[in-house]
């Protein structure tokens, strides 16, 4: 893959250097490889290579019962597995016409928003390292994320691959001290968000490093099909929770956070502000949620079957729109299951964002998209 030398390079008889980054490199956040064509310190071209983590989750789901597929969805989006499960199960429930009890919907919503918090903490920590603020933000983020993950473990029995949502509701009820524990975790998360705001947002070096870098315009972001905080930072108020509400998002008060410049700093700041909205949403959910009540429909078929039909479900995962396209031909397994990965579409814009930037900035541009490679490759 030799890039064409530019006009200027020919004139001085120099050659663009091909710089390989990854696939095994901490700054690529997983197994992702990109070949940078650099002229001195300036990036002239980026060729991303993905697929190192491709496991064929879509094909495997075609061979399995709907309930068995939940585990695979966890593993596509391992930093926000609740959101992934939710999207998949909403597709199954829509086709099977299962009504999820109200209390289960509130619990699902709380867990999805808490998962958004934990995922964004992960981003903040890793992004700090990308930018060069070594260790401190990472340890801070890890501390808050740990509290969240402990809570998830208490509820579901697993720290990352929960498999807690089931068709029709939840696998089992939440612990009795659920509300009190969530409130505790929210307090520590709020403190964490505040710490980060103080640590990074107004830091002069951090701003100099991130502002005006990796800009993508609103029109380009829409054209590339970007979603989540990455597109909202460009000033496009695109949020599935607001535009096509699912669960109980239309019953709670919160704001869609948008940026204006579409640069690395805005993508960081959108996520930070979005975390405060998540805290707000969870607080309202706790108020509205009943202490006791059913978490599964009264009558559940022993074998879950769906009538023939198809549905495209979209939900707002932390990284953007996580969509499930489910085609059923009857029976108890999908005929075709397609996972619409938010990161895949966001990553497509990497080239447009990075060309013309310095090599070191190409790393933080990649970091600011917040990719999860297992979601990209599926």
């Amino acid at each position, binding site marked *: 893959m030799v890039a064409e030398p530019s006009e200027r390079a020919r004139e001085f008889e120099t050659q663009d250097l091909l710089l390989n980054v990854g696939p095994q490199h901490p700054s690529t956040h997983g197994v992702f490889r990109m070949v940078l064509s650099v002229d001195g310190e300036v990036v002239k071209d980026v060729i991303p290579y993905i697929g190192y983590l491709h496991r064929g989750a879509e094909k495997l789901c075609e061979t399995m019962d709907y309930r068995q597929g939940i585990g695979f969805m966890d593993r596509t989006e391992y930093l926000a597995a609740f959101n992934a499960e939710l999207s998949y199960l909403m597709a199954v429930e829509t086709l099977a016409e299962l009504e999820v009890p109200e209390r289960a919907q509130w619990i699902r919503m709380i867990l999805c928003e808490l998962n958004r918090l934990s995922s964004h903490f992960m981003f903040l920590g890793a992004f700090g390292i990308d930018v060069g603020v070594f260790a401190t933000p990472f340890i801070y983020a890890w501390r808050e994320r740990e509290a969240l993950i402990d809570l998830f473990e208490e509820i579901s029995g697993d720290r990352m691959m929960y498999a807690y949502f089931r068709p029709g509701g939840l696998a089992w009820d939440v612990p009795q001290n659920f509300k009190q524990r969530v409130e505790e975790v929210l307090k520590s998360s709020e403190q964490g968000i505040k710490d980060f705001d103080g640590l990074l947002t107004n830091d002069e070096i951090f701003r100099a490093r991130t502002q005006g870098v990796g800009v993508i315009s609103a029109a380009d972001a829409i054209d590339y099909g970007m979603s989540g905080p990455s597109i909202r930072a460009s000033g496009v108020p695109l949020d599935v929770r607001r535009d096509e509400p699912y669960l109980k998002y239309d019953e709670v008060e919160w704001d869609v956070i948008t940026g204006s410049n579409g640069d690395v700093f805005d993508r960081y700041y959108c996520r930070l502000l979005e975390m405060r909205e998540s805290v707000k949403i969870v607080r309202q959910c706790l108020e509205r949620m009943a202490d006791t009540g059913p978490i599964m429909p009264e009558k559940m078929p022993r074998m879950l079957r769906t*009538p023939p039909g198809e549905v495209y479900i979209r939900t707002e995962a932390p990284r953007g729109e996580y969509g499930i396209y489910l085609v059923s031909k*009857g029976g108890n397994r999908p005929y075709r299951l397609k996972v619409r990965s938010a990161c895949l579409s966001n990553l497509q814009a990497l080239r447009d964002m990075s060309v013309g930037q310095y090599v070191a900035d190409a790393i933080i541009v990649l970091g600011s998209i917040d990719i999860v490679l297992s979601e990209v490759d599926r």
Partner: protein
Amino acid sequence: MTNDTPDTTGAANGDAAVAAPDLSATIWPEVDRALSGITATAEKAVLDVIVFIPRDEIIDGLRRLKNDETLAFDYLRSLTAVDQEEAGMEVVYHLYSTTRRHNLTVKVALDNDDLTIDTATVVWKAANWLERETAEMFGIRFNDHPDPRTLLMPEDMADTFPLRKSHPLQEIEILQGEGMGYGEEGPA
């Protein structure tokens, strides 16, 4: 999610033509107007309207859907294919309008003898990687694609199309579904 619209795709309804009365309240009349001159048909799925466009007119159709002022489908959510075995393959586009906030599913039926279709990258940049993935997984060729390399699959497996129904599974993968009765009849 709204479940109040009746599912008209059920087997009991038979042909798609039965669904026609339901569509007047949907986005279909607008789409029909924008696609005048193209032989498009529609059907209602659980959530969105599905529009079938013939293969040779697909790019023209997609362009019109994008540029039409009241429809303004400026956002390509997803692009994929479904292997319908003997009935050929379907390329599926999920469109969204960021300004009007409505959805549409567009489908193109391909014959098994001629699995080629024009690229949608001229309409949305988002189609680039999605088409590369669809091409390598189903063996569909996208004419004039600007970057027809493989995306997820290794280069030396270019003649293997894993998401086709005819692609064999490893033995261990078949065993996972064993006893779950996922056949036509289900468990005894």
